[in-house]
């Protein structure tokens, strides 16, 4: 069901309540209400079984989309860290000066 490789199972799974699920479930529910309205039926009171089914499908797809998204960003972060480790010369830390050292003494001229 997943379009993910085996190493994706090393990542923690997303919580069941995640934003992709919420949004897709909400828009699927809205789509079923719209289809009721287009067919001249009361939007919320008719076809509750359709509303519930579409919402569930949205939630389910959203969960898997979140998993794919987590894997993608974890891979990008890992590649970035590897690159930084392999090229330390490009990522030298600058000496930090505090503001007290840079700023001149304040002499009010009134």
């Amino acid at each position, binding site marked *: *069901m997943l379009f993910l490789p085996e190493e994706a199972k090393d990542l*923690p799974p997303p919580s069941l309540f995640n934003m992709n699920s919420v949004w897709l479930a909400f828009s699927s529910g809205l789509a079923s209400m719209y289809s009721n309205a287009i067919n001249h039926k009361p939007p919320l009171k008719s076809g509750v*079984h359709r509303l519930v*089914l579409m919402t569930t499908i949205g939630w*389910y797809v959203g*969960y898997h989309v979140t998993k794919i998204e987590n894997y993608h960003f974890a891979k990008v972060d890992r590649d970035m860290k590897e690159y930084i480790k392999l090229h330390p010369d490009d990522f030298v830390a600058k000496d930090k000066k505090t503001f007290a050292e840079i700023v001149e003494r304040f002499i009010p001229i009134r």
Partner: protein
Amino acid sequence: MSFTRLLSRAALVSKVGSRSIFQSSKVDISKPNWIRVGLAFGSTAFLWGLLFKQNSADLHEYRVRNGLE
């Protein structure tokens, strides 16, 4: 689907002897199709069960792979 509905209404208005091929009778909304309702609710429950099982399996797999269990 609403396009077929529009077409079927046109057939009622025209009053010719033939019936529309899309619908032989008007949809009666006072008699729900219980098989379809049961299938919809059944597949809803099935999908929720699948989701919970998948989540717990993923959690278990994550813990085993990272040595937390």
